[in-house]
Structures are given as structure tokens and as C-alpha cells.
């Protein structure tokens, strides 16, 4: 029976191909818009979150209780490298490391700037932070006792310095004495968020600890779990492993704005899909109503000949669903095709400073999630089903005699 209904539905669709085509076009466009826009928005938010997490860095961080309010050399925690390897190495994190992070002043022959000095473990931090290792001019740091520094390209321009030249970093030790030394710039990094290029200076952790005379103390510990959307496991593990005194926080707490952005995005995607559907639904219902109306006599005849009303209902609904399905398939495919050429990002640096304000980088990457595509298709089909119930119902309940004799 279904097969017959399908055949009827299909043929009915194409009886008035112009009407069907126009509707199809609208559905395709609507679907394309749903998915494409969603991909762009998701990409934007994902990028923002990824940037945020890579800037923190990490999913979970631990600090001295006073550090967040006063990120200076006075508030350090003692997690030596040995401890780090022993305790955290076996815990199954995707990545973990400790850093020294203090305010400092960098000076070249021409200028000086206040920056944040990061004493890092480059081997452990590989791939965990915003540093794009493919875009490094020169080289990145190689070990904790590397004698070089890596600064942002923008900072290098401001200071009028370059790879191979020396700069001086000046900060304070715990006794409030000046701690400074010269470093050679061994590399320049680029970051999505331009402000990072001016703010952060990377040096080897051990070299930094020696310069600041802080032994093996560090400013922060961070770990990366498996999924940034669910960090509970990483959080509890870290709490268990860190020595008492240090305060552990999830990234959603460290950057509340980012944390909620993800959820807001999910909600937004759903709303967007529903809105588009509603805009389409009027036309869809109209189309169905008219299609039914044209075939009143025919439907009446089928009913008179014994077709059960439920099958009429089914036929109409199938018509609607088929139309939607084709539109969805085409729209989804088009959206996928539209995403491909811009996979490497759209450059929106004309509003770069504005993007900075929102916390976004000036290059947009689309993110096409299968879950979004499925959501769009499912929502449209379900709502389409519901929308077509009314005309289908009426059609199924025509009085055969009246219907046949309708003019």
C-alpha cells in the first residue's frame, strides 16, 4: 500500500511541476541558509572558545589562591617538574604542563613595552596553546632551559627588533629586587587574536625561574582533558593530584563569557532552524492546500471507490514529506558545497578591531557539524509533517459525493 501511495504522491508532485519546483527552490534555499549560517556561527563560536581555551590555556587550571586577583610573582605554587611527571603523567590527560607567568617589561634599542612573560615547557606545550607552530618565523623554544625568547610578530614590529637580535626582559624577584637579563629573539609567532602577539613573550621555564630566582616554583598548572564540553573528569583528577593550597578551576569558571557562549550557540542554532521553517511553512501549507483543492474531484472519486481516508491522509503527507526531503537533500548538499571553498577561513580583518572586541579572530572558519545537519533535517521533516496534517486531514474527510460533484 505504501508503495502505491508513494507512487501517487510522487506523480502528484510533478503534475504541476512549476509549482513544485518553486516550492522546492524555496525549501532548498531555506535549508541551505539554515545549515550554512549555522556552520558559520558555530565556526565563529568554536573558534572563540578554542582561542579562549588556548589562551588560558587548558581545560582546568590550578593557581595559588591569590593569583587570579594578583597575577604576580608573589603568588606562586610549588609543582616541580619531577612531581609533574610522576603525578600527572599517569593520570591520562591529553596534555598538561606548568608555567611561570608574570608581568615584565621587554626592551629593545628603540622601545619598551609592558608584557606578560611566560616561562614554559615547550615540549609539553606542543599543540596546547595558541602558538601556531607552522607559522613561526625562526624557531620556537626547544627546551625548558632554552636561552632564547619567542615574541609576537606585532611586538617585534613595535620594538623594531627581529629574529637574531637581543632584547632585555626585566621583572621582579620575590624580594622585590630587579631581575633581568638579555635574551636572543629566536622566533616570532603569529596568533589569531592580534592582541596576543603584543602581550605574550615565551621563554624557557627553567631559564625564567633562574632569572626570577624562584627555584622550581610556577605560576600555574594546566591540564587538557578529552573534550572541552565536559571537563568534570579532568577537574576531579586535578583536584586529587594537586597539593593543598592551590585552587583549581574549570575553564568555564575562568572565562564565564566563553562558557556560556557554547550553550547560547546551541540554543541559537535551534531557534534559527525553527524560524526558517516557519517562514517556509506558510508557503508549504499553501501549496498543499492548493494541491488538494485542485484534486477534490479525484480524491472524492478515490474515496467513493473505497480508498480508506487514512490512505488519503498518508498520500498527502507523503507528498509533503517527499517535497521536503528533496529540498533538504539539495539544500544540505549545496550548503556542504558552499562550505568547502571557505574551509580555510574568510578574512574579515576589515572589521578586525571590532572582532577583537567580541573576542574573535579576524578569520572566520565555518564548522559544519553532522549533528546540525541532522537536526535541521529532522526538525524540518517533523514540523513539515505537522504542518501538512491539516490539509491532509481535511482531504481525508471529504464527503465523497460532495467532492465528486464539486465544480
Amino acid at each position, binding site marked *: 500500500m505504501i508503495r502505491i501511495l508513494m507512487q501517487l504522491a510522487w506523480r502528484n508532485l510533478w503534475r504541476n511541476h512549476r509549482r513544485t519546483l*518553486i516550492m522546492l527552490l*524555496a525549501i532548498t534555499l531555506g535549508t541551505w541558509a539554515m545549515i550554512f549560517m549555522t556552520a558559520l*556561527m558555530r565556526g565563529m563560536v568554536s573558534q572563540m572558545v578554542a582561542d579562549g581555551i588556548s589562551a588560558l590555556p587548558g581545560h582546568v587550571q590550578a593557581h595559588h589562591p591569590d593569583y587570579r586577583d594578583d597575577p604576580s610573582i608573589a603568588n606562586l605554587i610549588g609543582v616541580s617538574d619531577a612531581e609533574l611527571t610522576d603525578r600527572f603523567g599517569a593520570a591520562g590527560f591529553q596534555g598538561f604542563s606548568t608555567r611561570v607567568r608574570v608581568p615584565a617589561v621587554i626592551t629593545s634599542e628603540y622601545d619598551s613595552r609592558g608584557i606578560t612573560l611566560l616561562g614554559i615547557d615547550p615540549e609539553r606545550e606542543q599543540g596546547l596553546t595558541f602558538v601556531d607552530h607552522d607559522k613561526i618565523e625562526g624557531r620556537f623554544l626547544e627546551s625548558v632551559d632554552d636561552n632564547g625568547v619567542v615574541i609576537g610578530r606585532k611586538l617585534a614590529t613595535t620594538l623594531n627588533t627581529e629574529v637574531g637580535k637581543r632584547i632585555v626582559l626585566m621583572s621582579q624577584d620575590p624580594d622585590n629586587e630587579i631581575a633581568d637579563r638579555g635574551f636572543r629573539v629566536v622566533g616570532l609567532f603569529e596568533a589569531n587574536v592580534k592582541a596576543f602577539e603584543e602581550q605574550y613573550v615565551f621563554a624557557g621555564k627553567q631559564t625564567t625561574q633562574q632569572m626570577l630566582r624562584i627555584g622550581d616554583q610556577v605560576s600555574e598548572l594546566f591540564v587538557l582533558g578529552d573534550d572541552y564540553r565536559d571537563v568534570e573528569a579532568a577537574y576531579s583528577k586535578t583536584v586529587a593530584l594537586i597539593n593543598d593550597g592551590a585552587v583549581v578551576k574549570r575553564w568555564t569558571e575562568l572565562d564565564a563569557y566563553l562558557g556560556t557562549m557554547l550553550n547560547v550557540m546551541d*540554543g541559537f542554532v535551534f531557534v534559527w532552524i525553527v524560524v526558517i521553517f516557519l*517562514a517556509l511553512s506558510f508557503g508549504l501549507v*499553501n*501549496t498543499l492546500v492548493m494541491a488538494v483543492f485542485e484534486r477534490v474531484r479525484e480524491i472524492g472519486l478515490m474515496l467513493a471507490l473505497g480508498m480508506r481516508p487514512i490512505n488519503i491522509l498518508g498520500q498527502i503527507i507523503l507528498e509533503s514529506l517527499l517535497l521536503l526531503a528533496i529540498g533538504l537533500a539539495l539544500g544540505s548538499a549545496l550548503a556542504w558545497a558552499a562550505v568547502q571553498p571557505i574551509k580555510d577561513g574568510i578574512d*574579515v580583518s576589515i572589521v578586525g578591531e571590532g572582532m577583537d572586541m*567580541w573576542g574573535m579572530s579576524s578569520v572566520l572558519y565555518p564548522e559544519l557539524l553532522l549533528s546540525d545537519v541532522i537536526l535541521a533535517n529532522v526538525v524540518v521533516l517533523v514540523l513539515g509533517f505537522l504542518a501538512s496534517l491539516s490539509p491532509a486531514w481535511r482531504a481525508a474527510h471529504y464527503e465523497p459525493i460532495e467532492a465528486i460533484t464539486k465544480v
Partner: protein
Amino acid sequence: MNLVFRLAWRNLWRQPRRTWLTTGAMVFSNTLLVFMISLQFGMYGLMIDNTLQAFTGHLQIQVPGYIDDQKMRQTVADIVPLAETMRSEFPDQNIAARATGFALVSSEDRSYGIAVFGVEPDYEPSVSTVPGLLSEGRFLGDNDAAEIIIGAALARNLKVGLGDELTMLGSGKDGSFAAAVVNIVGIFDSGISDFDRSITEIPLGLFQDVFYMNGSGHHIVFNNGGIDGVAELESQVEALLPSDQELVVHDWDALQPGLQQAIKADMSSAFFMYGILVILVAFSVLNTQLMSVLERTHEFGIVMALGLTPGRLGRLVVLETAIMGLLGLLLGAALGGLVTSYLTINGFAYPGMEELAAKFNLPSRFYPEVSPISLIAGPLVVFLFTVLAALYPALRLHRLHPVEAMRAV
């Protein structure tokens, strides 16, 4: 003409359900557009206002070059009398003079290099929200008193509280030693740590004394209350600048370039979405009108055989659409206006807004307002597109052969 109108009207109501559905699409999208555009513009307005009213103001008078270099020596001479003159010229404006310097601010335990602003205690509250953000103590009073207000985050970092003393050490305008001891009379809390840590305010009189300003300052701030009319104000102020100094007027876009761009970025994506909506609605209309034309083929055939030109017939079709469009516009605008007005009273909040609010200095509950533009802009575009959509079926009429048409069922 009256005849055509009556015909169009009657044609519409031959198929009430269809007409209502098509109009419904328009009403839906119009309501949405009015609501969203009101929301959007309201949000932008708020973002701008809040950012500007926090400290920057809508206009500033400075010396040329100060906006880029911010050097101590780039001063506006006799700044207090100049501000007073401006106040008498523009009695509706909120105007205040300021001076800026960089100093080492020390408490017993800690020192920080920080920006110090000399402000006019009587006028500063009307140009900046900082005095209103005091969580402890009071704002500055006497223009010559050795008082200071600092942000809560800075107070924590310096380990000081209300009533404690801070020492300021810096360089005066002529490079000489500038030093003063000031009393903390107020602590402000904006909720944004970076902001709290970066601004301290002392009375302008004290500043001019300590930093050897000789009556000069660095900028005069105008708070216009909103961004409407700022351009006009700017030219008016420019005309009244004293000719014995070289001064320039900068508007808020020059002072905060990122703001305009942030809005542009957001607007582009919003307009893209609205565009999609409008096109989809236009498609619905196209479909409907096409169908309505096709099913009247027989009728049109007769009418054309009787002498009605395809052109006139086409106009009929377009008129039908226009009437529907107008209905959709009016109803949609009305409904959208109603929904928005409801929110104007009750406020609008969605999940995630609090954090957004905290980051951008916005209130966590938002009261959008309907403006003439937000009410008409969206629906008007929809109207235009739907009328355009009707052109295709209307033009097709030219291909209609009366005799063939009459044979249609």
C-alpha cells in the same frame, strides 16, 4: 482604476485561506523583523552608550596628535575656563575637563605604575559612570583636596582600603618631579577587573598643581546622552574653538574605533539572516501568485479575448499582491510593534545574556524600544520583494493566448 482595485480585492477573497496564508507568511516575517531589528539596534545603542558613557564620552576636544601619542606635553591651555565657556554655549550638554598622567602609585606594601586622571568633581559624574560605580566611600569633592578614588581590583592589589594613604610619584608637564600623598575617599567597582585596575581619579585642581600643568589639561569631554546629533554637535563645537590654540574635536568613532567595527560585524551577519528570511517570504508569494494566475487561465483567456490587454491584466495581479503586501506590512508592523512594546515594559533576557552583559558593560535585562525605522524598515523591504515577486506571474500573462487559455479547465 477603482474598478481594477475592486476586482483585485475580490480576487483576493475568492480564496480566503490562500490569501491569509500568504499574508500570514508576511505577517510572521514582519513581526520577526520588527522585533529583531528593534532588539538589535537597541542593543547596539546600549553597547555604544554604555561604553562611551563609562568614560570616553561622545566628543572630546584635544590638541592635534594627542589621540595617537598621549604625551603629557600635548596640553589644552586654560582648560577649566574653556570648559566653562563650552558649558555656556551648550547648556544641554554635559561637559567636563580632564588631565591625564602616568604615575607610580604606592601603598605601604606595593607599587604600581598606573594612569591618573585629574577630573572636575562637580562635572565628572555627568560625563562618566565611574562616580556612580562607587561601592565604598564617596566621590571627590573639593577641587584642591588631596583625595583619590581607585578601582576595587587595584585596592586589593595594593592591599589598601578606604581612608588609607597612597603616594603618587610621576613626571610633571615640564618633566620635573611630581609627587603627592592622597587619601582614598572612594572605591569603585565596575565588575570588570581590567577597568578597575587601570583608572584612578584625583581632583583636577590637585592634578594641575602636582603635575605643574599651569592651568592646562588634556581633553574636554562631552556627553551627549546618546549618539544622535553628535555629528552636528561636532561641527558646532569646532566652530566655537578658540583661535589662539590649535585644537581638534574627535567624535566617539575616532576615540573608540573598535566599537563601530564590532557593530558592523554583527550587523552584517544579522542582515544576511534577514535577507534569507525576506527571500523565503518572497518565494512563498511568488508561488501563491503564480498558482492563482494559473488557475484563472480560463477566466483570463475570456477577459483577454474581450479586449483586456495583458498589461492591464498584469497590473491587476501586481495590485493583488500589493494589497496583500500592504496588509502583511500593516499587520506585521503592528504585531511586531506590540511584541516589542511589551518587552519595552517587561524587559528581555535570554540565557547567556548575563555573561555577555558583564563583558560588555551592559545591563543584564534589556528593554528594547520601537523606533520608526525599526518599525518600517523590515516590513517595507518585505513589501518591495513581494511586489517584485509578483512580476514574474504578471509578465507571464503576456504569453497567454486567449483562445488556448479559454480551453483550460
